[in-house]
C-alpha cells in the first residue's frame, strides 16, 4: 500500500473536513433554532476570508509582514470572527426576522437572495479575480512550511494550524453550549421555541447570539482555509457552503457533534476520492454519500428521528 498517498490524503481530508465542520456548525445551530436553511452562511465564510486577507494587507502584505505570524494569525481570526458574526447578525435582523412566521418557502428564497446579493456585492467591491494569502512566504518567527512524516508524506504546518484551531473552537463551543446560561437558553429554544419563550427566555436575544456565534465560526473557517489553500474569491462561499451543508445533513442537522462528524466525513471522502479515483468524481462520491445517508438514516448519522406533532 502507498502510505505516502494515504497519509497525505488523510491529513488533507481532516483539514478540509475541519473547515467544513466549522461552517456546518453554524448551519446546524441556526437550523436547530429557526428551522431555516441559511444559504447565506457560506458567504459569511467568504467575507471572513476576505477580512483575513485585508488584515494581511494592513500589516504590510504577505512578503514583508510587520508583525510576528502568531500576532497576525490571532488578529486575523479575531477580525474575521467579529466581522463574520456582525454580518450574520445583520442578515438575521434585516432579512429573516420578519419572516419568522411566514410560510417555510419564503425565508428559504430570501436566503438565496441574500447569498446572491453578498456574492455579487463582493464581486463589485473586491473584484472578481482570485486573491492569495501567500501564507507560505510568511517568515517570522516561524515559516508556515512543510514537514515530513514517516513514509515521506509531506504535511504543512498550515494543516496543523487548521486542525488545532478547529479543535479549540469546537471545544470552546461545546463548553459554551453545555455550561453557560446562554448556551442552556439556546438548547431550550432549539428544543421548543414557544415553550422557551413562555419560560421567560428572550428568544430574540438567543437567535441573535446563535447567528453571531455560528457566523463567527464561519469567519474563522474562512481564515483557516485561506492559510492552507491560499485563494480567496467572491464565489468561494457557494461551494464551501454547499459541502458544509451536506456535512450538516449527513451528520444530522441541528446536532453539533453531528456537524463535526459530517464535516470530517465529507472532507475525507472528498480527499480520498480525489487521491484514488479522480477529481471529477469527487463530487459524485459526496453526492452518493448524501443520498445513501438520506435513504438509510434520513435524520443523519447522529440525528434523532423527528416525531411530527400535529
Amino acid at each position, binding site marked *: 500500500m502507498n502510505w505516502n498517498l494515504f497519509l497525505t490524503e488523510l491529513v488533507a481530508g481532516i483539514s478540509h473536513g475541519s473547515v467544513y465542520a466549522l461552517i456546518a456548525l453554524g448551519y446546524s445551530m441556526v*437550523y436547530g433554532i429557526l*428551522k431555516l*436553511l441559511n444559504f447565506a452562511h457560506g458567504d459569511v465564510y467568504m467575507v471572513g476570508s476576505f477580512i483575513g486577507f485585508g488584515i494581511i494587507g494592513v500589516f504590510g502584505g504577505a512578503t514583508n509582514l510587520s508583525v510576528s505570524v502568531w500576532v497576525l494569525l490571532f488578529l486575523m481570526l479575531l477580525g474575521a470572527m467579529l466581522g463574520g458574526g456582525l454580518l450574520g447578525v*445583520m442578515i438575521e435582523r*434585516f*432579512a429573516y426576522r*420578519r*419572516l419568522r412566521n*411566514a*410560510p*417555510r*418557502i*419564503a*425565508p*428559504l*428564497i*430570501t436566503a*438565496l*437572495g*441574500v*447569498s*446572491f*446579493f*453578498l*456574492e*455579487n*456585492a463582493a*464581486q*463589485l*467591491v*473586491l473584484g472578481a479575480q482570485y486573491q492569495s494569502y501567500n501564507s507560505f512566504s510568511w517568515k517570522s518567527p516561524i515559516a508556515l512550511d512543510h514537514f515530513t512524516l514517516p513514509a515521506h508524506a509531506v504535511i504543512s504546518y498550515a494543516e496543523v494550524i487548521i486542525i488545532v484551531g478547529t479543535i479549540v473552537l469546537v471545544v470552546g463551543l461545546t463548553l459554551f453550549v453545555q455550561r453557560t446560561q446562554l448556551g442552556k437558553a439556546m438548547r431550550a429554544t432549539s428544543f421548543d421555541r414557544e415553550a422557551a419563550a413562555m419560560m421567560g427566555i428572550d428568544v430574540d436575544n438567543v437567535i441573535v447570539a446563535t447567528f453571531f456565534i455560528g457566523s463567527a465560526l464561519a469567519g474563522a473557517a474562512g481564515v483557516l482555509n485561506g492559510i492552507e489553500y491560499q485563494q480567496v474569491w467572491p*464565489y468561494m462561499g*457557494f*461551494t464551501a457552503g*454547499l459541502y458544509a*451543508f*451536506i456535512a450538516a*445533513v449527513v451528520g444530522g442537522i441541528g446536532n453539533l457533534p453531528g456537524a463535526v462528524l459530517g464535516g470530517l466525513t465529507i472532507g475525507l471522502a472528498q480527499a480520498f476520492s480525489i487521491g484514488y*479515483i*479522480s*477529481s*471529477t*468524481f469527487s*463530487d*459524485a462520491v*459526496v*453526492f452518493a454519500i*448524501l*443520498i445513501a445517508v*438520506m*435513504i438509510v438514516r*434520513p435524520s443523519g448519522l447522529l440525528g434523532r428521528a423527528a416525531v*411530527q406533532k*400535529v
Partner: protein
Amino acid sequence: MATDPTDPNAPRVGVDEWVASHEQRRVRRTGLLGVVERELERVPSPAFYLAFGVAAAILPALTSNGYVIKVGLDTLLYMLLALGLNITVGYAGLLDLGYVAFYGFAAYGYAMLASPKFGLHWATVGVIPLVVLATVILGFLVALPSRRLVGDYLAIVTLFFGELFATVYQNGEHMSLLGFTKAKDVTGGPNGIPNIDQFHVFGARIGTLNYTAYYYVALIFFMVLLLAMYLVDRSRTGRAWKSLREDPLAAELMGIPVNRLKLVAFACGAGIAGLAGTVFAAANTAVFASEFDFTSGLLIIVYAMLILGGAGSLGGVILGALVVNVSLEVLRTPGHATWVFYVLIAGTLVARVRPWRWLALVIAGTAGFGFVVHAIVSAAWPRGVHGQAPVGGVLGSGLGHWVILPSNPMTIGNVAFVFLVLAVLALTLLRGWAQRLAMIPTLYLAAFVWENRLAVEPSVTRLILVGVILIVLMNARPQGLLGTSRVEIV
C-alpha cells in the same frame, strides 16, 4: 341549524365559512381605479393569455430589430422555465434548486444527438421527444430518493445535484466510467459543444441564427403548455398538488397519494425545462456547462421571475418573466439603466412617502443637498467632480452638476457602496420624521454609488439587483404580484 343547499349565501360543503366569504370582506379601491379593477377581475384569465399570445405573435411583424427578437426569444425561454418551475414550486411546493440542471441536461442532450460531436444528426421530431423523455426520467430519479424528505432536505439534495451536473459536464472531456473504461471526451469540457444542428422537420430547416423562427417555436410551445397548465390547474391533480403545498400531512390524511404526486410534479417540471433546453441549444448553436451553474445566476433569475409574478399563478409566470428579463436587458446599457433608476426611485417615493408635503420636502431636500455637496466638493477637491456621467443628454448634464463624479471613482465608490447598504438597512429601522430626514442623504448616496460604480458595471449590478428583488419582495409581499395571499387557518 340545517342549511338550505339551494341558498346561495349558505356556506358550501367543504369550504371554510370564513374563507368562503373572504371575497366580500376584501377592501376594494373606490373611484375610477376601483371600477377598472373590478372590470378586469371579471375578464376570464384565458382571455389575458390569449391577448398575450396575440401580442407576442405580432411582435416580430412590428420590428425588424434582431436584438429585440433575441430578447423576446430569451424571455420566452425564461417563461417556459418559469412555467415548469411553477409546477414544482408553485403548485406542489417542492423547493427544487437543481432545476437548471434539467435545462442544461436537455440542452446537452440535444447537442449530443444533433451535432458533429458524435456525428449524430438525428431528426428533430425524434430528438425532442427523446430528450424530453430522458429529462423526465432524470427528474424521477432525482426525486426518488428525496421524495420522503421534508422540504429543506429536498432543497439541499437538488441544489447539490445542480452543482454536480455543472461540474461533471464542465470536466467531461476525459470521462471514464470510474477508471474502468478508457477516458473519452463526452461533453467537450469547458469548450462545450459547438455547431449544433438547427431544427429541421420533414425537409424544412430553420436557418442558422434565425431567431425569429425560434421565437415562434418557443411561443407555440409556451402557449400550448400554458393552456395545458390552465387545465391542470383546475383538474384533480392540480388541486391535489396545491393541497400538498398547503399542508402535506393533512393532504395525506385525506387520502391524497403524496409521494406519487411529488414525483409527478418533479418530473413534469423537469420535462418542461427539458423542452426549453432543446430550443435553447438549437437557437444558440452551442452549449457550455458554465451557463448552467449557480454562479451564472440562471437559477436565481428564474426563481426571481416566479416569485415576482407570484408562485402558483400562471399570469404571474408571464408577468414575472417579462418584468425581470426586460429590466435585466435594459440594465445592460448604462444610458437606459440610469433613466430607469431615477424613474424607479421617484416612483417608489411617490408611492411610499405620504403625505405629499413630506414627499416634496424629501425631493427638494435631496436636490438641494446634492447641489450643496457638489459645490463644497468642487471648491475643496476639484478632481472630485471631473468624472463623466454614464448618461448623456439633459439628464447627463444635469447630473454632472449635482452628483460628485470623481475622476477615479473605484475605491471611494466601493466604500460608498458598503455605506449605502448600511444606510438603507438603518433606514428601515427609523420611523417618522427621522426616517424622512435620513432619506435625503441616503438618496444622494444612492445616486452617487449608482453613477460611479453600479451603472458602469452592469453585469454585476444586474445580479445584485436580482438578489435585492428576492429579499425585498419576500419581506414585503411574499405572494408576489399576482399571487393570492394564503389564508392561514389555525
